[in-house]
């Protein structure tokens, strides 16, 4: 469990950093949106990690296994909601990018800016 603990934890941090970096440093709007969903995924991973109980099983009652230890259902419920929120944001962001592409002919942020200054 200790190994997994460390790994899980560092994966979360690594993903968070990669996503955040992409959002901040990239110029391409689609790429930034992808970075944003990476960033959110990292948080999902953190929450699902919180929910895990050693020796537990999925919190759906069953007679298939004899354990009565269940993982924590609450963070899983929160993440179900958060995933839906994430896809909604992505969809709306993509629609805005499409409109930007039509209005400016590019999806690179600096080109949009320079065109704005010329206009």
């Amino acid at each position, binding site marked *: 469990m200790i190994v997994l603990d460390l790994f899980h934890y560092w994966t979360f941090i690594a993903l968070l950093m990669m996503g955040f970096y992409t*959002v901040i440093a990239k110029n391409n709007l689609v790429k930034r949106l992808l970075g*944003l969903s990476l960033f959110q995924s990292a948080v999902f991973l953190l929450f699902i990690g*919180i929910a895990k109980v050693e020796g537990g099983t999925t919190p759906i009652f069953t007679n298939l296994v004899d354990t009565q230890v269940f993982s924590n259902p609450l963070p899983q419920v929160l993440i179900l909601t958060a995933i839906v*929120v994430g896809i909604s*944001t992505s969809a*709306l*962001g993509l629609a805005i990018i499409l409109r930007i592409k039509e209005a400016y002919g590019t999806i690179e942020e600096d080109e949009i800016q320079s065109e704005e200054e010329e206009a």
Partner: protein
Amino acid sequence: MLSHLPILQIVVPMLMAPFVLLIQPARLAWALTLATSTLAFAIAINLIPLAAGDSAMIYPIGGWDAPYGIELKVDSLSVLFLLIISGASTFVLLAGYQSLGSEIHEAKLNWFFGAWLLALAGLLGIVVSADAFNIFVFMEIASLASYILIAGGPNRQALPAVFKYLIMGTIGATFYLIGVGLIYIMTGTLNISDIATKLPSVVDQTPILVAAGFISIGLALKAAIFPMHAWLPNTYSFAPNMVTAFLAACSTKIAIYVLLRIDFALFQSNLTGHLLQFKVFLIPLACMAILAGAYMAMRDSLAKKIFAWSSVGQVGYIILGAALVSHSGLTAALLHSFSHALAKGTMFIGIGLLALQAKSGELSSFAGLGRRHPLAAIAITIAGLSLVGIPGTAGFLSKWLLIQAILELPTGAVALLVVVLLSSLMSVVYLARFLETLFFPPAPAEGKVTLPLGATAILLAIAFASIYFGLAPTLPMELATQAADNLLGYGA
């Protein structure tokens, strides 16, 4: 039925949104939206007596008591913000039909009004929720809906601006979520009062401290507190005029509301040294925001952008008051939220009405319009005076309270005082520039438009509300004082 008012406050606008989508003639959709918004305003008014004093209305949803279920909580602090939000929405809708119709394609107005109602429901939902995760959900409804409203106008520059807002808003919300996650790891609960009771027994404070940091930064992004304000000027300037009026009146303030509520309920009393950190972190940011906002407002030449920058500065005032962490400071901050909402709302509605005639958003297009439309210009002037803080207006009262709160400080009062006075002078400059353009040049000869009469009347009415609440401030004052009591009383 009275006991259901907290949930009706949210559910009424929320469930009307799908109906509005299905209604075709734009005028009918507008009327339904207006009716719903008025109803929400009425509910908020009815909540005033119920939540007065230090009692709070608790509403467990689904009959499941907190911390297991989600509960709603209405106290004087929330009522103040409920009034601001529902009032702003109602008056902007009342005055804004022509302006919205001129900027948004008529066939799409029903979608637009659906988004409007969802933004309203989302903002109201944040205010009454007592559950940290639930706040996140409603924050996202409100944010997504406001992105739609902002992107709705004919101005193509709104699109990159709103995309930037979307990115920053989502980062803010995700930061908030990380903070909530850290708190959940350490306490195992999500209800704010339940967290507050469990926090003192948490041995290791580091994660809580960092959670406080993430939540504060996340919300600061949404509230456009100074170095994180980059999204605000462009979104406000390029959004449809009435959307600017609505959002400028309430959206950033809601993020400040959540920040105050969570910070005072959870961290002030439970984290050692947090008081100091809060002050050291926020007071300099607030000062920089005040000065930078006023400075940029002096330099800009787009009419709406001037006042968008002014919003950055005004958010600074609110934060400064809150960061003093004293009773008078908090009262001043809350009262300033109210008076600023009133003044900024009036200002942007006024600009929006004049923009029916102006060719572009440039300051020069407004030249002489004050002579042609004196009533609207008078309203704008009153709102401007309230923004500057001329005695007799609501803005004066809140600024005066703020100065008093500053004077209570043991050290550093002079520096803060200088900042406040300097920025007031600067705001006189940018306001004067705008009013000068409105009144002094001759009115353009061509393209005379008569402003809609009803809208002008509404505009004047809310402008005079600024004066009324400056002279008879009992209602907002009581709510703000009580709310400050409640906030400071969490730890006691």
